[in-house]
């Protein structure tokens, strides 16, 4: 009998080190097929989409404690639909005053978000920590997809 289950998946990670800047990089990869399916790791299966989405949300909150969103670079625009200025304003609105200073590097100003996160994130109350991650709205580890399975 074919049943529809709801699978919680985690994005497949591929971590490397960039020795030139001494920070880990996260690579996004696919199976290199025509449909370019992103690589994922199955985590849990549920009978209802509500249960699956609830578990995915819990796992997302836990997973945020295990990584630095700026592994992928000093300013991960691809993780964030906001501009850097908007991100800075939003952090200030959350009560975060210790923000990374802009420094000149290769003829343009950059902020070392990676080091800033390493030095500060563990000090924030959980609601602030989660709110900062929520600002990084394009960076999500878990999702839910329906799958058909013969049980």
């Amino acid at each position, binding site marked *: 009998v074919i049943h529809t289950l709801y699978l919680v998946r985690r994005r497949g990670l591929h971590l490397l080190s960039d020795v030139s800047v001494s920070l880990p990089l996260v690579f996004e990869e696919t199976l290199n097929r025509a449909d370019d399916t992103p690589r*994922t790791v199955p985590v849990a299966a549920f*009978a209802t989409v509500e249960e699956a989405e609830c578990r995915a949300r819990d796992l997302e909150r836990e997973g945020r404690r295990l990584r630095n969103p700026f592994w992928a670079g000093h300013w991960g625009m691809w993780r964030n639909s906001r501009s850097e200025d908007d991100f800075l304003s939003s952090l200030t609105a959350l009560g975060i005053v210790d923000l990374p200073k802009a420094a000149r590097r290769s003829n343009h100003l950059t902020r070392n978000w990676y080091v800033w996160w390493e030095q500060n994130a563990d000090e924030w109350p959980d609601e602030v920590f989660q709110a900062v991650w929520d600002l990084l709205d394009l960076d999500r580890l878990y999702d839910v997809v329906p799958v058909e399975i013969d049980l």
Partner: protein
Amino acid sequence: LWEYNDNWEEPGAEGGETVRAFRRREDAEALRDLLEEEARQARGADAGEDSPWRFEMDRWRRGAFDPPKPDPLRYDVVPAGEATFYEVIEIELGPGVGEKRS
């Protein structure tokens, strides 16, 4: 799973194609061992040559969220006979999922 980097095979991102699902881990491990042996023999055919395939296994020594140390000299490569080609992934089942029906 493996991607050649002009020097050795390195693992790409986690994830891949699911082969089969089992209720019991021992059953999954048994099939994994069988498939692994076949893959190792197929990929290890040139082990006696000057430049046999080499596989970088560092990813399995770390957790998924543990970034590697930025040390390009610390590569852990093994021959095909010791490489991983299949993994057993254990998933959580929600209430009522996967129970045998009488």
